[in-house]
């Protein structure tokens, strides 16, 4: 069944988009991530312009992280204090991100920047995750104990605050900075940032695993809602019809993904996720290097009269 997307300005097959939403939702439920880093490239792949893809995926991620956050809230697995400090940074970062997005679009370099940031971010995070997962897998094979966690320089910073539910005592400076960074790249790249935020919170901030996913989802939820609003007001690029189809597919797929995820061991899960992220990054890199089919592109600057 063909449906015309009003903002993306092209007809798509509803079932194809629904299936894409479900597939990405499955992966996101399995790994406990938003899945924006998969969704945005897939949309670009079926012919939606990167700008519309990034803006529309923001609302899709908001929906899936809200359903996740509600579940974690009921289990009391969200640290409200930590979430609010992260949000201070997150909202600032998102505003900066949308502003940068608008500037790059005017310069004609938005598509390039989206592709470049995907390459850099995904190959880095992917290889780190993959190698870490591999090492963890080797350790369990050999039966060795994982290295004990120690405090690092982050814990020497001033402006310390007590986060009760996470049971940590931590400076607010790195928390706010992380919020800004995640908000910024989320708005520019159309990703929730959960797949970067969760490892950062575990390895750098030493947030316990009991509250990490829930709290990161709150940040994703608010920054993505904010990004949707800003993209809608400044760039008029949010395709609500596309977003709705993605959401419905996504939240359904996520439920089945979450069940599948429980059957796989943690290290294997990280190994798989690392591989997945890495391959998306490599795909973008290849695209940049090979000669494009057409060297020329046209963009309309709005019809007048």
């Amino acid at each position, binding site marked *: 069944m063909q449906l015309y997307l*009003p903002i993306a300005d092209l007809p798509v097959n509803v079932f194809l988009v629904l299936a894409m939403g479900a597939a990405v939702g499955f992966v996101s439920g399995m790994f406990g991530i938003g899945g924006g880093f998969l969704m945005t490239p897939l949309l670009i792949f079926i012919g939606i312009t990167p700008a519309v893809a990034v803006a529309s995926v923001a*609302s899709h991620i908001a929906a899936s992280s809200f359903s996740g956050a509600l*579940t974690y809230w009921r289990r009391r697995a969200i640290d409200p204090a930590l979430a609010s400090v992260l949000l201070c940074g997150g909202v600032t970062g998102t505003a900066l991100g949308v502003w940068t997005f608008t500037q790059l679009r005017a310069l004609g370099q938005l598509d390039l920047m989206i592709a*470049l940031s995907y390459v850099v971010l995904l190959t880095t995070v992917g290889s780190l995750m993959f190698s870490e997962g591999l090492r963890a897998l080797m350790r369990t094979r050999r039966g060795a104990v994982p290295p004990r966690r120690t405090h690092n320089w982050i814990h020497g910073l001033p402006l310390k605050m007590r986060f009760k539910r996470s049971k940590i005592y931590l400076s607010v400076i790195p928390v706010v900075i992380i919020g800004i960074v995640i908000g910024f790249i989320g708005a520019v790249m159309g990703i929730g940032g959960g797949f970067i935020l969760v490892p950062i919170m575990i390895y750098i901030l030493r947030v316990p695993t009991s509250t990490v996913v829930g709290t990161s989802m709150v940040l994703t939820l608010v920054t993505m809602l904010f990004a949707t609003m800003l993209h809608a007001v400044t760039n008029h690029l949010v395709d609500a019809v596309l977003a*709705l189809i993605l959401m419905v597919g996504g939240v359904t797929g996520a439920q089945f993904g979450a069940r599948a995820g429980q059957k796989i061991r943690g290290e294997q899960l990280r190994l798989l996720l690392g591989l997945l992220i890495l391959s998306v990054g490599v795909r973008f890199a290849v695209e940049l290097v090979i000669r494009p089919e057409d*060297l020329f592109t046209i963009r309309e600057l709005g019809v007048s009269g």
Partner: protein
Amino acid sequence: MRALAAALFFLLLGGSARAERLIVSVSNHRVTVTPNYSGEELVLFGSVEKDAATPADRTAYDLVVTVMGPRADMVTRRKERTFGIWINTDYRQFLQVPSYLALFANRPFDRITSPEIARRQQIGLNNVLLTQRVGGDYADVVPNDAFRSAFIRLRTQRGLYREDASAVTFLTPTLFRTGIPLPAEVPIGTYEVEIKLFANGAFIGKTETAFEIVKVGFEQFVANTARQNGLVYGLVTAAMALMTGWMASIVFRKD
């Protein structure tokens, strides 16, 4: 405004005796594009009316029909290999060019008239005026300019620019028809149709008509809201996201 100017123009011209009159009509003056619209074809009918002033030896006519969609500014960008990757480097801005452009004739343009008249009357895609901003200047460039030809090629690929030198058919020596194909992604707005009449290589007159393309339905409503009420649109989308997320957590709740 433009119609008024055209009317004045014709009034001024009215003084000179005109041998032929062109009478035309399009099959539909208002095309509505619904969500499942997949392109259609309008038909333009017309006839050449002779009067007493018409030279007796004038029997064979040639016609060129130009259809122009709403005008817009467009940017054409060129990618070049820089540091091993393909980057948009150079660009040209096309000012107020038609978003849809079709040129139809009853036989090849170069056989209808001389190159000079073809250029003056903008006959053929190579002769249509496409104003570019080159630095601080506004000018059209030579037809084989890389940006100009890429622009026309890309628009042609999307079915938005076309020329067809056999689309106009004469049913009788004075009665003619032509189809105006409108692709699925046709821009909405007012379309101007210009019909130019030639005989023995000389331009002897023209007439104009117009039609309108409007989109209707839910999709158009969404697109309009997004452009005109960005804030409301954003709020509704955000609320929709929250509703979907909340419903999912209710439906799939494991208790």
